[in-house]
């Protein structure tokens, strides 16, 4: 097996909100005891609806937020014990919106070379050469070196963002919805680029996306998040062929492929996404679950792992179902 490049061990992040003179502060957990790992060359897809905590998790993986509990390890070393510079060399982000993630007052060269300058790499001319080389790799002509972001199209801007993320040759890149702000034809170019670069530079990705078609295309493993927990994790092919958690099933059925015969799917999810501030008791998915059983509303399911897959659902936990059926000892 390849070397472990990124690991989250039981991380939790709590936020306190609403504290004022007249109101007691309430605390809620955006991410609750999540563990995940990424090996070299892997692409871990992270999917879930808005509010499920995937961006909070991404920020913790990047070291931009400290976990309230648990720890994040990059290359085997706790991120909390490494300096920001060291962290930035190993792990880099690509954000969703290339219109807001690039400084409009800096030229492409300035933007892409910033990490080099911060890490004091080479002289000005060496840095310019490196940036030019990087632009070649992301498929952007060198004549854009002195251009400004407003002179570039969305796809070109995203290429600049990718060049900036890769210039220090990080081990891990966290891609937060890298293509959702782009047109279809541009999206395919960026996805092709991400795949090419992965092989060329041997980098690993965490891909956060709500577009399951994109996730299936790029990811090697997929983790499904719901209300701050990872509820299912499987190798991509298995997950799409055989989703186990009812939530995963609903997510997969909502993918709209261009097949007019199929019509609009009914996901049977009914009620809207629950309020993360006030999660339902027991299994947090039970109010929307078509297979909910009585004990789902009282007992939190435990993660069940076998081999390379994990699911957190009472449907697969015979022991818990048994215990729930038996009368409680007085």
């Amino acid at each position, binding site marked *: 097996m390849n070397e472990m490049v990124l690991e989250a061990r039981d991380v939790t992040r709590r936020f306190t909100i609403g504290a004022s003179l007249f109101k007691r502060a309430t605390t809620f957990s955006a991410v609750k005891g999540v563990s995940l790992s990424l090996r070299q060359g892997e692409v871990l897809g992270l999917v879930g609806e808005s509010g499920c905590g995937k961006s909070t998790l991404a920020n913790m993986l990047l070291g931009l937020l400290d976990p309230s509990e648990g720890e994040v390890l990059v290359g085997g070393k706790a991120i909390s014990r490494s300096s920001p510079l060291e962290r930035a060399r190993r792990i880099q982000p690509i954000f969703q919106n290339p219109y807001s993630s690039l400084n409009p007052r800096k030229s492409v060269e300035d933007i892409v070379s910033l990490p080099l300058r911060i890490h004091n790499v080479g002289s000005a001319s060496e840095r310019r050469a490196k940036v030019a080389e990087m632009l070649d790799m992301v498929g952007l002509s060198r004549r854009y070196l002195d251009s400004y972001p407003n002179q570039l199209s969305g796809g070109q801007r995203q290429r600049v963002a990718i060049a900036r993320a890769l210039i220090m040759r990080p081990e891990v890149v966290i891609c937060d919805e890298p293509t959702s702000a782009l047109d*279809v034809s541009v999206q*395919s170019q960026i996805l092709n680029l991400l795949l090419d670069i992965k092989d060329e530079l041997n980098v690993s990705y965490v891909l956060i996306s709500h577009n399951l078609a994109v996730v299936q295309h*790029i990811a090697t493993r997929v983790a499904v998040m719901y209300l701050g927990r990872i509820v299912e994790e499987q190798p991509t092919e298995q997950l799409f062929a055989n989703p186990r958690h009812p939530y995963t099933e609903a997510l997969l059925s909502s*993918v709209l492929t261009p*097949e007019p015969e199929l019509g*609009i799917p009914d996901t049977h999810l009914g*009620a809207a996404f629950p309020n993360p501030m006030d999660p339902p008791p027991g299994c947090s998915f039970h109010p929307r679950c078509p297979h909910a059983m009585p004990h789902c509303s009282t007992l939190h399911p435990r993660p069940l792992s076998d081999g390379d897959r994990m699911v957190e659902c009472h449907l697969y936990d015979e022991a818990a179902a048994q215990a729930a059926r038996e009368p409680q000892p007085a």
Partner: protein
Amino acid sequence: MSKVLEVENLRVDIPVAGGVLHAVRGVSFSLEKGETLCIVGESGCGKSLTSLALMGLLPRAARRTADKLIFDGIDLQSASRRQMQTIRGDRLSMIFQEPMTSLNPAYTIGDQLMEAMLWHKRVSRAEARERAIFLLEKVGITGAAKRLGQYPHQLSGGLRQRVMIAMSLMCGPAVIIADEPTTALDVTIQAQILLLLSELQAEFGMGLVLITHDLGVVARIADRVLVMYAGQVVENGSARQVFGAPLHPYTRGLLRCMPIPGRTRPGERLGSIPGIVPSLIGEIRGCAFRDRCGHARSACADFDRLRHNETGHEWRCIMDEAESLSRADELEDV
């Protein structure tokens, strides 16, 4: 079936620094009662301006011309501002993309829902309120009466979009124009909203013009599809025609760009459309797609008309049906 919307040779021109931007260049279509028409294309193809032109909501500088622009028997071109105000929000309503920005944060959901109805119809507040509650329940919002007193910030994105849909239905419109109604939403909510729209449409017999860049959405909901490129319709047909046997190289290119579970192999290279959209400033001659098309030939510089076959499938390409179909599998990269 009767036509509720007829558009012929719609053009939108916007004066800009370097000349005139021809944003919409001769778009024609018609919409039957109860029909769903999807206008699909990438940013800048003119699909949103087409919808704003229908609503009479174009930016002040833009100039709209058309040979025919008839909604529900009314000529929109000769309609005065006042007449347009009585049509908009009543017989012709619109759902905008961003439910976060298209609701007024300072007014309650109830006020905003009832506003159009109180303005257009002779009804009392109580009647409008009753209608608002009825429609909120219809779009699947629980505790509708309580929701009326809430403000937009108290609702999630999916709920806000449902409120927008309910609002567009308040006066019982003949046609709804929806510009990217599900783009800002999660996939699970997207499916629900689309299902809801098509159910409501069947129930109330409205025409629906849906503008989107998402071919997946189009395939699943459309009766008829218009593919737009550079301000023109490049392909027009039923969903089965356009997705089953696309005849324009651009439509085929778009479909090849999409990863499709079950069809594309994970990790394989996706198709792409090389090059960029041409500038629409100044005079444009010939096929606007020719610089990005693998089948382009010198005659494309002069070819610019819609072909059609006997099934009503239209496409704007120098290749006739037989040639286009026989070359469908060729790599269309330049």
